[in-house]
């Protein structure tokens, strides 16, 4: 088929389309719903009784804020990656920097603790997965309507943002403040979810194959 004929045929199929929203608007919409989901999830699981005291601990406060920032920045990266030409390398680096900062803060505070105890946090992992599931599904649905040129990477950022929100939620539920516990049972599961996100992104973001 000649290019001229292809153009003519594509033009004939040029039905009106609904433009996607700007990544900032998409991020705000997603955050709004995700935070509500998270709130409901935390209430269902039961927030820790010493919540106020826990956030007076500077490490918990900083790690909590960094986790929230990680969720927002990763989601923003995923949304910008899904608009051709809007992807910026530095934007993709921001979540990695925040994640590294969180790990450094936890590692430093772990050095100061005498009897480190990671404990068994399978329940925490299950809770992170449960709290991340709905926000992740919503984010994947929103991103599928766009055109992610790097499908796998967009999937990683989508999973990371939902996992970060799930991790933040678990920090409001879990009573173990030991830095090693937070590192092993709250942060490491995020990495696993990122791996799953890569595969999911490759499978799910099929705008160019549909």
């Amino acid at each position, binding site marked *: 088929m000649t*290019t001229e004929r292809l*153009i003519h045929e594509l033009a004939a199929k*040029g*039905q009106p389309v609904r*433009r996607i929203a700007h990544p900032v608007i998409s991020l705000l919409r997603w955050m709004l719903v995700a935070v509500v989901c998270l709130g409901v999830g935390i209430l269902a699981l039961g927030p820790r009784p010493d919540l106020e005291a826990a956030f007076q601990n500077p490490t918990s406060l900083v790690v909590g804020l960094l986790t929230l920032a990680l969720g927002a920045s990763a989601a923003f990266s995923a949304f910008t990656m899904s608009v051709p*030409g809007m992807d910026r390398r530095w934007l993709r680096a921001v979540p990695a920097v925040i994640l590294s900062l969180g790990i450094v803060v936890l590692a430093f505070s772990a050095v100061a603790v005498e009897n480190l105890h990671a404990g068994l946090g399978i329940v925490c992992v299950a809770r992170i997965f449960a709290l991340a599931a709905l926000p992740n599904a919503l984010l994947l649905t929103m991103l599928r309507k766009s055109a992610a040129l790097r499908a796998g990477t967009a999937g990683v950022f989508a999973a990371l943002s939902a996992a970060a929100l799930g991790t933040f939620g678990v920090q409001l539920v879990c009573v173990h403040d030991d830095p090693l516990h937070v590192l092993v049972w709250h942060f490491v599961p995020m990495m696993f979810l990122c791996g799953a996100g890569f595969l999911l992104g490759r499978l799910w973001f099929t*705008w160019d194959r549909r």
Partner: protein
Amino acid sequence: MDADRHEELARLLSAAQDGDQEAYESFLVGASKLLRGFLQTQMGGDGMVEDVLQDTLLSIHRARHTFLPGRALGPWLYAICKHRMIDHYRRSRRIMRREVSESEIPAQRAASIPHPSESRAGGVLSDALAKLPKSQRHVVELLKVHDMSIKEAAARTGMSESAVKVTAHRGYKTLRRLFGV
């Protein structure tokens, strides 16, 4: 000059998003001129420029809802084009890894390798394909031999996507019957 051209194309694409098919055709014609030049610069003597351009136009069609009016058109357009170009090179590399060109096969060995239509499996398949009605054979070849998507096959044949699916389904059914599966 280029900025004016981009602005005009952005305006046309914006109108196309609202369903203006004439504006859309003008946009695609203008964009293909820009992209052909870009691809010729990037791909040099590669004879696949027109194929990559057509793939890019199909991608633009699928992603046209992601262009945000008010933003520069260039980054959007070239990001899609580069994506298709990289895709093309990946596909070519994959093919080169798996296939050996005839010129690289020593003459004696080449003579001992039967042509696909002469090999037993290739011959059986060619015979079966030849028994299909022309339209079914064409669609099955596009989908299974040329590895096209339903949309691409529809664009290539001028059929609707549903018609491609139905024709392919009938072709597979006939092939299954011919193979006794």
